[in-house]
């Protein structure tokens, strides 16, 4: 017990020194639990045979923050998300969720941790044999929740993603964009405070991709959700880093550009290259960098 307290104190001190801004500390006085990052990677290494996937990756995702992970295909972005969910185990290093070290958790222990994490898969990964309703209700059905409550929650989530009309459809009747949105609704059931987006806009037309980004922005600004948004599309980075969601006088959610009003958009970028983090910071710093690899990525050539 003594050593545990000791360790927590050390961790908190490190975070205060390295991560927190003065405004964060003011918030933390009111809500002490906000000091602990939602997700933390500490020197994580992972290899498949001789192929190094992650090579000493360290970063943190604070509460209510969106971390955009950028990088080329096969650069370890999706692997990072799978590690957070415990679908893979690292060779070395530590992964902490809400300050809890999950690195060596068994599958049964991970089930508890996964209850607080939602996941949006690249192609939606909807269950083919279940309707949209049953897909969204999946987690609640597994927990044996009363059907009346389930229906209320499913309708609320489908309304959030603007897909109430598709409630009785089967996944094969949906377009790619609708599948992703159902995937988002399924991930949001149970109000998880951490959401993982694994290339949710890949292969979608620009307006639908924009809709998915708006959902991520709404979650960040209105629901205080921490998230990792894996992508390799710079348009997504632009949306997530320059716009914020707010509610107008009529109670409608609107999106405004940074600069129209004073706001601090809670999004940072992490850039992966060959399993290493080569950049971590705000969008402005990212675009101002002289690193040729990042410049190539930003300009797309």
């Amino acid at each position, binding site marked *: 017990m003594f050593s545990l307290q000791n360790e927590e104190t050390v961790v908190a001190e490190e975070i205060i020194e390295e991560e927190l801004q003065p405004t964060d500390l003011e918030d933390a006085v009111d809500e002490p639990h906000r000091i602990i990052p939602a997700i933390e990677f500490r020197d994580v290494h992972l290899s498949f045979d001789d192929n190094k996937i992650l090579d000493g990756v360290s970063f943190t995702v604070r509460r209510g923050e969106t971390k955009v992970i950028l990088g080329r295909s096969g650069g370890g972005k999706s692997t990072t998300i799978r590690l957070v969910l415990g679908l893979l185990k690292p060779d070395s290093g530590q992964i902490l969720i809400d300050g809890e070290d999950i690195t060596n958790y068994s599958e049964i222990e991970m*089930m508890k941790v996964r209850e607080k994490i939602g996941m949006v898969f690249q192609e939606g990964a909807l269950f083919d044999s279940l309707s949209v309703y049953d897909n969204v209700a*999946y987690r609640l059905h*597994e927990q044996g929740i009363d059907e009346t409550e389930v229906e209320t929650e499913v309708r609320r989530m489908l309304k959030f993603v603007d897909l109430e009309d598709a409630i009785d459809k089967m996944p094969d009747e949906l377009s790619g964009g609708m599948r992703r949105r159902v995937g988002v609704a399924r991930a949001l059931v149970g109000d998880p405070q951490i959401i993982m987006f694994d290339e949710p806009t890949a292969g979608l037309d620009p307006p639908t991709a924009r809709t998915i980004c708006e959902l991520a922005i709404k979650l960040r600004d209105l629901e205080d959700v921490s998230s990792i948004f894996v992508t390799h599309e710079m348009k997504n980075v632009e949306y997530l880093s320059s716009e914020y969601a707010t509610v107008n006088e009529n109670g409608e959610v609107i999106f405004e550009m940074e600069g129209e009003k004073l706001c601090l958009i809670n999004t940072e970028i992490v850039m992966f290259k060959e399993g290493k983090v080569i950049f971590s910071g705000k969008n402005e710093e990212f675009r101002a960098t002289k690193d040729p690899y990042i410049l190539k990525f930003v300009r797309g050539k």
Partner: protein
Amino acid sequence: MNLLKKFLFELQEITNLIIAAFFGLFRSPRYFSETVRQMDLIGVGSLPVVLLTGFFTGGVLILQTYPTLEYYSLQDQAGKSVATSIIRELGPVLSALMVSGRIGSAISAELGSMVVSQQIDAMRALGTDPNRKLVAPRIIALMFMLPLLTVAADIFGIVGGGIVASGVFSLDYNSYITSVRFGITTQDLIGGIIKPLFFGLIIGSVSCHKGLSTTGGTVGVGRSTTNSVVLSSIVVIIFDFFLSRAINSIFDIKTI
């Protein structure tokens, strides 16, 4: 050496899968309705195939053995020869092979497709253990339904043999039935039901393992489906030999 290592690794994976599915039965939530659905798919769905196989196997057995029995003036043993062969060996093994082809391939393809479309990952991410939700109901359904299918195949095999014996060789039907009744023993019946229990376990665990370890997209699904049928059929036939030896020595069944 590499082949041996691969074999031991596969064996370890399948054993782990069975253990995980077994211990999952004692934790909630329990997937009773899924198990019943699988029983319907496996049992009722496979019934026509298994009955046809049993019927014509009984028929062909009498077609091939009757002339020899007649040569030695042992026509009154025709029913016994068919019943013993079918109940002890052909019923359990042929039913298992038919179910392996029909159900084993379907299980492997279904789970393999779920793996490549990330549905298994989604299931785990949503807090469900696929071993409990997908593997355990299928193995239980197979272990429960395969003995019942085997009994049905046995009955249709004996009936098929009787129809061919009386229709083709003009053997008195009563003589055939009497030979069946006095030819088979309780030990034969018990042995004939124990075998499909194990065969169900083999088909279920091999198919689920092959499906869940699918890699390489849709091509991989095809590969794992083929491997599942081939491997489970071979293991059923090999295991049948050792199981027959064990049952014969436990129940002291004379092989002649």
